């Protein structure tokens, strides 16, 4: 293969879990570097030119969120966060700081690889085509002409609904927090009105989803935010 292997850095203090993550990723064809602390992680990230970081939030020498902020200062590579359940606030904090996705422990190899693949694919696509027409399910969105169609029929969206959809589409497979959506769709002054997002998301689902109560594309991550799943 002429294309270089994608480089992934795994920052996790638990050796067993690190080993399993490394094994899974290598089986997927990635080049994996390990780190067991924030300090080591930053050094690896700075020297290995990674394509992705898998980060555990509870590290012995510091907060994973600080790592994300540091990394985001100079890089926009995908970051997948590993965290325990019942700590939604930590996840939201990590996502707001710039993480793209999260996995709740315990997780299986299949889940991990699905996320890794999706983000690597997104990354390679973002570098390549500037496609303005996107399709998912029965929906076709033409970002250049600002037209949304459902099964070939034009679909009327209000300006906010359209902005919301456009923002979701431009961040596929990533978890977007309420705060992120408010900031980018409504503007910074609305940062605390999270019910706005929920109400408009409900309206958007009614127009886009086949069954709004069991959505396929705009998936709710309870207590955290939303994820847009293109297929």
């Amino acid at each position, binding site marked *: 293969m002429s294309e270089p292997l994608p480089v992934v850095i795994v920052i996790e203090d638990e050796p067993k*879990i690190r080993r399993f993550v490394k094994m*899974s990723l290598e089986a997927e064809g990635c080049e994996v570097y390990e780190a067991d602390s924030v300090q080591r992680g930053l050094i690896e990230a700075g020297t290995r030119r990674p394509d992705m970081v898998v980060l555990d939030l509870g590290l012995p020498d510091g907060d994973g969120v600080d790592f994300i902020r540091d990394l985001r200062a100079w890089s926009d590579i995908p970051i997948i966060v590993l965290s325990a359940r019942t700590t939604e606030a930590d996840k939201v904090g990590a996502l707001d700081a710039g993480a793209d996705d999260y996995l709740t422990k*315990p997780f299986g*190899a299949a889940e991990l690889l699905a996320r890794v693949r999706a983000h690597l694919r997104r990354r390679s696509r973002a570098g390549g085509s500037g496609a303005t027409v996107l399709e998912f399910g029965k929906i076709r969105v033409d970002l250049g002409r600002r037209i949304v169609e459902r099964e070939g029929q034009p679909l009327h969206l209000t300006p906010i609904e359209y902005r919301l959809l456009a923002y979701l589409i431009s961040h596929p497979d990533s978890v977007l927090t309420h705060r992120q959506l408010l900031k980018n769709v409504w503007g910074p002054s609305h940062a605390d*009105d999270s*019910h706005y997002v929920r109400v408009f998301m409900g309206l958007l689902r009614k127009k886009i989803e086949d069954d*709004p*109560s069991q959505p396929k594309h705009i998936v709710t991550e309870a*207590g955290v935010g939303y994820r847009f799943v293109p297929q």
Partner: protein
Amino acid sequence: MTDGRPDPDQLLDRIKEEELRAARGKLKIFFGASAGVGKTYAMLSAARQQVQQGTDVVIGVVETHGRKETEAMVEGLECLPLKDIQYRDKLLKEFDIDAALVRKPALILMDELAHSNVQGSRHPKRWQDVEELLSAGIDVYSTINVQHLETLNDVVGGITGIRVWETVPDRVFDVADEVVLVDLPPDELLQRLKEGKVYLPRQAERAIQNFFRKGNLIALRELALRRTADRVDNQMLKYRRDQSVSNVWQTRELLLACVGPGEGADRIVRSAARIAARLDVPWHALYIETPELQRLSERQRQRILKTLKLAQDMGAETATLSGSDAVEVVVEYARDHNLARVIVGRDHVRSWRPWYRSFADRVGKRAPDLEVIQVAREESHARRPADDHTDESWLDRLKAPWQSYAMSAVICGMATVITAPLHSVFDLANIAMLFLLAVVLVSVRYGFGPSIMASFLNVAAFDFFYVPPRFSFAVSDVQYLMTFAVMLAVGLITTRLTTGLKYQAGVASRREQRVRALYEMSRDLSGALMPEQIAEISERFVETEFGAKSALLLTDEKDRLGAAVHVPGSSLSVDIGIVQWAFDHGTEAGCGTDTLPGSSVLYVPLRAPMRLRGVLALEPRNPRRLMAPEQRRLLDTFARLIAISLERVHYVDVAQSTTLQMESERLRNSLLSAISHDLRTPLAALVGLADSMSMTRPQPTGQQLEIAASMREEALRMNSLVNNLLDMARLQSGAVKLNRQWQPLEEVVGSALKAVHTTVAGHRVSVKLPEDLPLLEFDAVLIERVLSNLLENAAKYTPPGSRIDIGAALGNRAHVDIWVEDDGPGLPVGKEEEIFKKFERGQKESTTPGVGLGLAICRAIVEAHAGKIHAESRNGGGARFVFSLPLGNPPLVNTGEDDAESEDLRK
């Protein structure tokens, strides 16, 4: 200012006032020019109308004075029985306020607002009863004559020559919600009088006949009409202000009335009140205590207090300040409070003191920018001797121990003896000087009386021993008479000055003593850590400073008054009823106040910045001592210090318990998260390692893969058990903080279905949520958990292919009901409640996995959201679990605006 916007402060005041008014009862006053115009009759007919409209009307007091028509009006109305009050071996009838408050009618009739209650009633005046009724939310109808209004009282007295002593503060009249003028032309009134239809008390009949002269009646009628017109005018002004009709903002030229110690002070106060009312501005009344004025007699002090009280009743803000220069204090006070006009009494012109400058002049000179208004005092009565400056008569002041007089005589003798040998050496004038020195010494050392005696003795001795002819009182040269006169004058003046200075020094030291007492008390209080210590300190200081026994009654956490704090050796019996009253009203009660002045105990509410902290009860051995203004001020400060200390102690407790609570919560949380981390990490590794087994080289066999898969499955199940246990522990310890957000229910149903989709894959799930369901406030993660648990249960206990329905509907009591139902085998009969208990399962011996925590967790979560959860049998078989969430007030989300915007965009 020319902008028409009302001043925000004033608006706020008005809103507060309106709120206050809404809770208060309404006062309607039937206002008349004099007795006999038919106020009571008018009141009763108005009351009868109210009865017809179904209002609950009760007569508190009505004086029919035996008139037939009026008595006929009373008939059929409920009458509150009067209370008997023993007063100087007579049994008197008086209005029973407690009975009225217990009865709590919608409307009560209280005739004669100005009436003075019999001693021993709760309040000295009926209008105070009325105030209490109003604040209890009872509407009141009452009557009053124009001469009973405080500010018009002296005017009416001037017109008719009869002064009534029962007055009502204008404030009461002004804040009345409605005033009805009952008017009768004088001729008709006189006619009624002739027919005997007007009640006249037997005694003083002639004086009253004088009162009912036509001229008087016309004047009174005019006063009454005018007063009513003023009120209507005020209402108009207020209306304009409320509606912001007026664009005129008068700069508020506030008034300051200076109250002096003289007779006419109340006249100044009345004038100031009238002027303030006319200008519609607030006003202050100020009394300045100079060192000289501290020697005033008890009677005068009482009068000053009364005058200040009067000013307060008339709506003034009163203050008593001390300072050596009254003018300076007045000017400073006026500047501090932004008072533009100063009202002072006119000084009497004294032609024999041309250099004397009136108080008004002096204020004017000191502060040229202040407007000084002089008002006439009452015609100066002949100065009564008792009004003289000091309490002590001259004879009193001469009082001194006999030793002082003896010493004075000895010093005079010594002066004579010392001067004897010098006579030949010195001039007579210098000898006289030595005698003067003796007088000064005596006056410094022994006080007024002995010093006066020394003055005379010295003159006598000088004359007898030295003035020729010596050893006789005869005088050869007339010029020595002059010497005697000067010697005597110098001696007396020195005496007066020195004793005056000594008196002032005494005053100063008493003041210092008070300050020291305060200082010591605050120092002691600052070290107190428990209410008992505070009670002990307060008791000690009240005993030494006021000579009074005292007790502290404190509030508990629920703001209720408890029993007196026990201090060993204290034995004050308090009337818990008065204590409660003083506490509820936040005003002093008992001895020497407006409320139950007959009691021997004074009850002072302890007002701290946040709230009332209790009541200080004290029983002075000498109540008059407590009445002195400086003592009252000292007591107020004491009470405040005690209250602040109590509050401090209270907050120390609060802070301690909060710290403790926080500490234990933190400990619990960190323990739980440590456990959860330690339990989950190996499980996570187990799941991951089981997965990675399939990636090992060489490729594992099918059997190995199967084993890895079931390892993974078991680890995941173990994980869900651990989750359940930890969640239960968290919920039970109260460590869960709800992260409540307004959100649509649909969303959480969707995420719950996604979370359990593998479990319910074999079932037919359908969701039916009403379109118009409002936003609900809940913690998405926890409610997702409730729904997941219910769905998992439904999947677990029904055969594959069964139906699972999720639905919701607006329930009763402002709740939304949400249910999960299935068409499976249903619940064991009679176990609908038990399954929510911990470690309880539908079937005891079952192969279905789980420990029976799922429903217990659901219940804990739903109850934390102030909802309810229960299970029942579904119609047509199957189980049905219903939980409810409160509706609340969801925030508005404007989706319409967005649509309007889109119209523009599409063009």
